[in-house]
């Protein structure tokens, strides 16, 4: 006769260090300035790293004659360091709002994610403070991902036509990484990543969100499940937890012009719907964060500022959950250490934008590439809105993370990257939960990664 023994699973504890506000916080006085300062700051930060990488690759003497791009002379081997710039005919006029036929149907917001700017006749240029120089890439580099804003060291010869015929391009590569600590004795620990909950979306099936909440709070599954669940030390919500009804509605109306469009102001009904969505989010967060520490990042649809880095949710929007010490309101992008594991990521806007610059649809490869640039959002401010920082570029990745993610992606994808100096990085595309009903668990010990789907009904279809 078996006796039912009640197992009490204790949530595993973890060391948590929050770098968000230090790195991504915007001080009230920091505006307004022009964007050229940001490019300077970026070049200054990455120049020593790219130099070191180039020396390692081309030999110690390779950098003895680095020139400004406009000083390049024909026939001599030229080495120059600067920012790459991809000239694309397809890049939209940034002021499109003022020139567009306002009655023309606009592409749905959800499709804009897949818009491409790049084309056949794009020109890659290298720019420093002297000017710009067109690059002619060798066949071997033809398919390599280069986007505007990357700092690179370029070697080649200037042709008669005044373009630099490149033989090699050197990027900063993966930065130094702190070693991981030993596995915890208490068993394997995990962080959970989720994005795009879109709580309060009128047309949305709330069941998967419900299941997610119950799963995380240990109200679902058998003992075995509970043991695993109790080892999830932290939930990171990577943006778009709430719903912007105006955007949803614009998509629903087929992109037709609305009187409220030009006002750039929400119609009162949308305003109410958004407020309602935020209230529902508050309830959800209250429930979840009373069981597990939660990091809440804002995303493109959340009631938050527009320019990156997006600042944390204001406490007045989440009056109840923000009272809990376990709810951590974060910035987007995000940077924290959990038990010594450096976790860096964004709600997806930088990756979506980079993806518009490259022909390939391999989002994972682009994300890995951005690690090699040591930059979270190279295309900002070119086509991605960001603050005009004056003295620093917060998007530079100073220390190679162990876990690097981008939220609100079309599909779950993941890859382990091993760096030349033994750096180990888990790179993850966190899917949009409202569409994929999937959350991702990453082991803090092994950096192994597991998706959990809440697509079907409870229990049986749950995969772990």
């Amino acid at each position, binding site marked *: 006769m078996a006796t039912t023994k009640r197992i009490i699973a204790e949530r595993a504890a973890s060391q948590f260090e929050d770098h968000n506000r230090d790195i991504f916080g915007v001080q*009230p006085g920091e505006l307004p300035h022009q*964007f050229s300062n940001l490019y300077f700051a970026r070049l200054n930060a990455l120049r020593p790293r790219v130099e070191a990488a180039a020396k390692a690759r081309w030999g110690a003497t390779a950098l003895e004659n680095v020139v400004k791009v406009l*000083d390049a002379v024909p026939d001599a081997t030229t080495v120059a360091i600067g920012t790459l710039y991809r000239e694309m005919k397809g890049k939209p006029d940034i002021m499109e709002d003022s020139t567009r036929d306002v009655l023309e149907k606009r592409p749905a917001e959800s499709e804009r994610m897949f818009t491409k700017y790049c084309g056949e006749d794009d020109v890659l240029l290298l720019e420093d*403070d*002297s000017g710009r120089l067109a690059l002619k890439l060798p066949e071997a580099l033809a398919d390599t991902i280069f986007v505007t804003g990357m700092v690179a060291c370029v070697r080649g010869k200037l042709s008669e036509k005044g373009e630099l015929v490149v033989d090699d391009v050197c990027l900063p590569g993966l930065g130094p990484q702190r070693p991981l600590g030993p596995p915890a004795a208490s068993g394997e620990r995990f962080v959970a990543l989720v994005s795009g909950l879109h709580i309060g979306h009128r047309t949305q099936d709330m069941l998967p969100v419900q299941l997610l909440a119950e799963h995380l709070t240990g109200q679902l599954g058998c003992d075995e499940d509970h043991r695993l669940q109790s080892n999830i030390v932290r939930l990171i919500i990577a943006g778009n937890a709430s719903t912007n009804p105006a955007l949803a509605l614009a998509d629903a109306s087929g992109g037709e012009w609305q009187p409220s469009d030009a006002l750039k102001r929400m119609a009162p009904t949308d305003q109410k719907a958004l407020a309602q969505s935020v*209230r529902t989010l508050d309830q959800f967060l209250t429930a979840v964060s009373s069981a597990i520490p939660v990091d809440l990042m804002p995303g493109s649809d959340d009631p*938050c*500022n527009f320019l990156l880095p997006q600042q944390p949710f204001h406490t*007045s929007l989440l*009056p109840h959950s923000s009272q809990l010490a376990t709810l951590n309101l974060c910035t987007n992008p995000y940077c924290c250490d959990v038990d010594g594991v450096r976790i860096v990521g964004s709600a997806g806007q930088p990756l979506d934008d980079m993806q518009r610059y490259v022909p390939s649809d391999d989002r994972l490869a682009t994300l890995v590439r951005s690690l090699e640039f040591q930059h979270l959002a190279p295309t900002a401010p070119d086509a991605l809105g960001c603050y005009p920082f004056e003295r620093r570029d917060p998007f530079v990745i100073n220390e190679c993370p162990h876990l690097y993610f981008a939220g609100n992606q079309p599909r779950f994808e993941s890859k382990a990257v091993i760096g030349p100096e033994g750096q180990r990085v888990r790179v993850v595309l966190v899917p949009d939960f409202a569409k994929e009903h999937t959350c991702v668990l990453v082991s803090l010990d092994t950096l192994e990664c597991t998706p959990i789907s809440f697509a079907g009904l409870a229990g049986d279809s749950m995969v772990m």
Partner: protein
Amino acid sequence: MPPTFNKRPADGGGSADAKRPARPRPDDDDDEGLDADEMIEEEEDLMMEDGMLPMPEEDEPLVLLGQADMAKFEREWRRPPLPALDPAVDSIDFQQIEADYSNVPSAPEFARGSTEPKEAVIRIFGVTQGGHSVCAHVHGFKPYFYVRAPAGFTKDGVPGFKAALKARLKAALPAKDGQQSECVLHCDTVTRQSIMHYAFKESATFIRIVVALPTMVATARRLLEQGLPLPGIGSVTFETFESNCVFVMRYMVDRSIVGCNWLTLPAGTWRQRGALSGGSDGDPGGSSGDAPKPATHCQLEIDIWFADVISHQPEGEWMRIAPMRILSFDIECSGRPGIFPEPEKDAIIQIANHVTLQGSTQPVLKNIFCLKETAPISGAQVLAFETEAEMLRSWHQFVLACDADILTGYNIGNFDLPYLLGRAATLKIGSFPYLGRVKGMVTKVKEKMFQSKQTGSREMKEINIEGRVQFDVMTVLMRDYKLSSYSLNAVCAHFLGEQKEDVHHSIISELQAGSPETRRRLAVYCLKDAYLPQRLLQKLMCIINYAEMARVTGVPLSYLLTRGQQIKVMSQLYRKAKSLGLLLPVSSRKGAEGEKFEGATVIDPIKGFYPDPIATLDFASLYPSIMMAHNLCYSTLVRRSELGKLNPDEYGKSPTGDCFVKASTHKGILPQILEELLTARKKAKADMKAEKAKGKDFDPLTYAVYDGRQLALKISANSVYGFTGAQVGQLPCLEISSTVTAYGRQMIDDTKAQVESHFNRANGYEHDAIVVYGDTDSVMIKFGTSDLGTSMKLAQEAADRVTKTFLNPIKLEFEKCYHPYLLMNKKRYAGLLWTNVEKYDKMDCKGIETARRDNCQLIREIMDTSLKAILIHSRPDLAVAYVKQQISMLLMNEMDMSKLVITKALTKTSDQYAVGNKQAHVELAARIKKRDTNLAPKVGDRVPYVMIKAASGAKAWEKAEDPIYVLENNIPLDTDWYMEHQLQEPIKRLFEPILPDNLDSLLKGDHTRKIKKAMPTTGGLMGFVAVTQRCLGCKASLPAGAPTTEGEAALCAACKPNEGDVYLAKLQQHANCERLYWQCFVQCQRVTGGSYQDIIGIARDSPLYMQMKKAQKDLKEAREMLARFGV
């Protein structure tokens, strides 16, 4: 060349447009609109003192900063070296681009019997296919003109006449010309006809008078018109003929040379002048020892007898365009704060140059002359100098060495060139002002006023640079295009689709004072400014189109930019008249100002919105074809007194009562010219088609030449009518022009009657056709059917039917249908234009505020968007919603201010306007000048302004204000004024056919009830106001003693529980500000063209500048507001 400027008739004035007598509008809107006030041609003597002023000594050698070698540069600047030529075997082909003449001592070899101490030698400048510059000195052509011989005058009277004229002329000439031994070289009698009035095939006797020098023509003419005592007859006053034809024109007409055509100097007829500076490294002597020294900087200099020059008509291989060297340049000056640079005080710091060959897109040369060391620029030569004088001297050397055929740039004629010359004078660089090809000719600046209907009034500077054509892109654009602003920035945005940087003078000085790198920054900017005019020339194909215009009309290229429209028609008349033995009188008729005649007809529009197709029938080239059909000409006009001499079937009586003989009796010269022009146009169009059909052999350049030609032919054909109607013209004949319009009116009315009487139910058609509107040369017909195809078929039938009833070559054509069609008023309509049944071609709007430039952008946008909604999207409801929303935005102070800016051209300064006639933009310009001279608009500029709230009863001119000033000081705009004066009328007009019953709801509905005004930061009562914080939720004043900590200061106690909702709303606003801020600045950064460059120059007249300023301000305010909620 003697320049001609239009002199304003006594009463004329830009403001008098409305009062101007109704002048018929020639043909459709693509005619050239002849100026009524063009001045009569007069030979003006601009000859240099004496051909041979010595060129000042070369200054000491130039020293370049850095390692560069001046001599090496100079070698690179030159044209390809000239191969050795043998006059006995080689003939020389070249395309002439410019011609003038000079009075020089006669060359014995070319005297051929003349004993005059000086003769007028024509200089023809040109380029060979190999890119070598040529100057041909053409000897032996003499100026002449005609007078009508008095009755009974015979051959025998000639010697007496000659002697009398000679005596008088000698006395009247200035001393230096009086030395000419024989001023009247030759007189003889000829048999000719005057072009004026039908002459009944009778010829008259004329005396041809050949004089020694061109300048004597005008004097002789004056004497003859005043009266000349003839032996045995007494004092006779003479009517002169063709005495106003300028000398070079005369030569070109007589030798069948047209502008920009190819000439051949056959082997054995020419003599090369001594070696040129260009070939100095080759053989030094030239061939013959006795050949005179070169007088110009051209590579090849030739002497030749005038009759030996062979002229080729621009056909076949002679159609091509030689690789002319085009130099585009731009200067930068240092400035002092608040003062526009003055050549007496402010230095030139950089001169950027781009040299290209016509027909190629890549520059052959790119360089920049800089003051002080400047960091190198890839792809461009950088020449740096320690002193400005050295820089200017070396630039002068560059101009001579590169030997450009065409000088271009933006506003070079009124700024860059005069400034360079002024600066050289200040620095006392004696060698500088010799920029032309003729050695020893000083380049001078003359101030002129240029007035024409096309460009309005402008202060102009006239600069003589012999042998090079000045092709100022700004002048070209002002002549050929109507734009709201002619700043280089606006023009580039319009034609090239890109904004350009505009560096303010104050920043220029800073950059110059900085390091070699900052000077390079400036140099890159300056180079771009030199490059843009070149791109514009290419894009708009100016050179090709102007060359074709010169060929078609026969005038030299430079005339097209410096002279009015009439010379072009005159040139054609002279040519045609010569071939027919006709002479042109010198018009003494200054067409009386009061003389009015009726313009074109307009059939009253039946206003409304037509969802069914409306077919449009057009008369092709209406006025030219009327002139051809009815044989209207000077030479066919019958004097009323002489009507009795004709059979009634020999002439036609026009609706105005004027009579012209029929073509069968005597074919007019104007109809002949027109026929030739239109035939040539048909051919050019056929050639275009043939060229296109060539497939892979298609040559875009040839195609462009044909296209330029057909355009030039069309414009020329249309301008003939205007020429006859010009009131102060060379040869006005109002009988012709009023007859033309009268026939035009009759034809329109006829067409209407025919269409309506035939296409009706009575004749078995499904519906009754109605002409809903008709204007000048077109009628709009509603056939009643809703099917586009049927409508087109009926329209074609109607066109054919009506054409049959008119004289050949008048043709009514069916080209397009409007479907749907919105007819608002006379000359105001819009519709989707269809030429086939599959897809509409475009949305066509006439006379609607989408195009008018003295309206603000807002109304243009509203009209454009509304029309799109109605016509394209078929959603009038959307249009209504859109208009309401825009009005609401305006009233709520949410409109982007750049959309409310109005620009007007400043034609005179305020003190030139009559007292009491104050105009907004003029007063504003004066006010800005008081604030900052630097920013003050100059005469000719367009002044941007917005209307601001002022005390009630303030005049409009008191309300105009500089938009940037308004933005910076938060001055509230007068939205009521915009509603009343800008929006109301156009919106009413547009929506009247759509909302006939409910029009008021658009302008006075609920959406107009909410108003918001900006709070000014300066002036008025603001100094006395204490600012209190208001609750962001309900706008209640917060108690003065309320806690000032952030987070407490945002809301009143009542709103506090809803903090989240209030915050959400404000957040949204903040996010929008952020987005706009980022967009503006990134856009500016893109304009700047480099990510590392600070944005320093965005033109103040660019909408971007205003948006940038506004975004900056708005975001700051939004952030401050958000901060009140605390972090």
